[in-house]
């Protein structure tokens, strides 16, 4: 009788002990006594990323694979595409096939091609000039100092413009490398606000009308200059909204299409957008941040003779191609930042009669 009672009790006790041991294990070892970080100490950028999840006029149409180590710069000219990377400038022809490879010493930050085929490659502290066959013509380094950091170069007729983010200035050289003008340095007497370049990004571009546009990255906008260094106009768009430029220093790169429309590229939340250059009105999104998952992934942009928007993606080691959709809708609701139905104006026309207004998230 006793034995039968013991047989009934033992399984119950064993089961209870097992449950207690398991609970103790999970309580003491299986769970953390530390709380997970709450929302107050979380930096959530999802809301900013979601802003560009909208229909665009453009679509990605393939890419050009690169066989270049550390590709850093992109340019177009004479129907060709130039990509500069470590120790080389690679030339792609009409069919996006590699047609030439020029050797350079170092890694250019920027590259440009003149109408006669001359190639200008900007190293951090020197400009290398190559002829259309890649033969070294000259090097310009006398006007650059130890703090110079060349980030952009453009050719306009007899002028070569070189942006120096380290010295926060744009140099205008003649085609032989003689310095003509320093542009963008702070000069209250000429209404020049001064270029602010908190990071090594300072881009410039010349449109089809020969107008020089320089990014003022610290002010998050653009400025137009004459060749003598006087300022024509400027506009700034510091904003986290889609129609503005967020971050410390944007846009990082600019280019113009054949219609003279401004194409911009940003770092941080990488976006490619289109603006009306004179007014600074936002005209639409070309590519949103969901296409560029890693920060600072685009090294340069350009627009080729077929109005394809080319974006140099170093992570993919490719030039990504964006074209207008064949049946692209008229996205008039994207204009003027009408995500919130408001038009933004912060243009300053430098004619003596200053017109300035600020209505975008940040004061400045």
């Amino acid at each position, binding site marked *: 009788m006793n034995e039968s009672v013991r047989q009934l009790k033992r399984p119950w006790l064993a089961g209870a002990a097992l449950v207690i041991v398991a609970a103790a294990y999970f309580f003491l070892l299986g769970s*953390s006594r530390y709380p997970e*970080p709450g929302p107050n*100490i979380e*930096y959530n950028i999802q809301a900013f990323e979601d802003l560009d999840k909208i229909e665009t006029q453009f679509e990605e149409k393939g890419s050009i694979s690169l066989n270049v180590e550390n590709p850093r710069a992109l340019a177009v000219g004479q129907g060709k595409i130039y990509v500069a990377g470590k120790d080389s400038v690679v030339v792609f022809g009409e069919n996006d096939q590699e047609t030439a490879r020029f050797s350079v010493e170092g890694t250019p930050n920027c590259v440009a091609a003149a109408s006669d085929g001359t190639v200008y490659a900007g190293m951090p502290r020197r400009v290398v000039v190559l002829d259309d066959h890649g033969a070294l013509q000259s090097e310009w380094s006398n006007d650059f100092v130890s703090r110079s950091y060349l980030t952009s170069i453009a050719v306009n007729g007899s002028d070569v413009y070189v942006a120096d983010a*380290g010295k926060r200035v744009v140099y205008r050289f003649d085609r032989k490398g003689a310095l003509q003008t320093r542009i963008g340095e702070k000069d209250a007497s000429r209404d020049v606000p001064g270029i602010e370049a908190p990071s090594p990004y300072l881009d410039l571009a010349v449109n089809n009308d020969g107008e020089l546009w320089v990014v003022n990255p610290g002010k998050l906008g653009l400025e137009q200059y004459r060749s003598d260094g006087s300022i024509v106009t400027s506009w700034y768009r510091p904003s*986290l909204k889609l129609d503005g430029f967020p*971050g410390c220093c944007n846009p990082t790169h600019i280019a113009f299409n054949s219609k003279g429309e401004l194409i911009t590229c940003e770092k941080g939340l990488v976006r490619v957008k289109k603006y009306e250059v004179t007014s600074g009105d936002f005209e639409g999104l070309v590519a949103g941040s969901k296409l560029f998952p890693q920060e600072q992934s685009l090294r340069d942009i350009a627009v080729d003779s077929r109005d394809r928007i080319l974006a140099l993606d170093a992570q993919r080691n490719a030039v990504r191609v964006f074209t207008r959709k064949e049946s692209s809708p008229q996205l008039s609701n994207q204009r003027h930042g009408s995500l919130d139905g408001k038009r933004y104006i912060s243009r300053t026309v430098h004619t003596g009669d200053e017109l300035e207004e600020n209505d975008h998230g940040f004061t400045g």
Partner: protein
Amino acid sequence: MNEQVAFDRRDFIRGAAAVAFAGAAYTAVGDKTEQLVWQLDPNKCTQCGRCSTHCVLNPSAVKCMNQFNICGYCDLCFGYLQPGSRERDTGAENQLCPTAAIKRTYIEEPYYEYVIDEKRCIGCAKCVKACLVFGNASFYLQIRQDVCINCNECSIAKACPSDAFRRVPASTPYIYLTGDIESTKSQPSSSSQPPQATLGPKSETS
């Protein structure tokens, strides 16, 4: 029986002495091996925030650093300002840091210096992520060795999702960014000095 007698008390004492001598010799050699301390590799850090909640100390021994030679001294500093803040000033409502541990000091138009008050910093990495995404990535986390008690098993290292914690020699306990202008997120290097010892505004001279 005879074999058991052969291992007598004297033999036992001799053996014990030999073991003790060997142990002392090993300890003496071991003492020459450099002590290791825990440190966080900023290039692996994903700013998850667990450094602030999983340290045995409160506040955490992990603190934010500002690498001044990478910092852009921006007026519009996303590591300092709340996104969409109405003003660029030191108002509490405009500050991103939950403990107001970042001090903003005017240098010259339009540049500002940002210094971390480590007594207030809880190592949440909120500013680190903001600076990484929108700025120059000059903010980063480090374990302050004068605060850390160097646990045998670091509880943050155990919880770190990116395996960013490792032991480094105590003589060079800090891993800081080098400020290589070629990359905004530079390769780390080691130093015996706390990173913030490099405090100083950026020179405007050529």
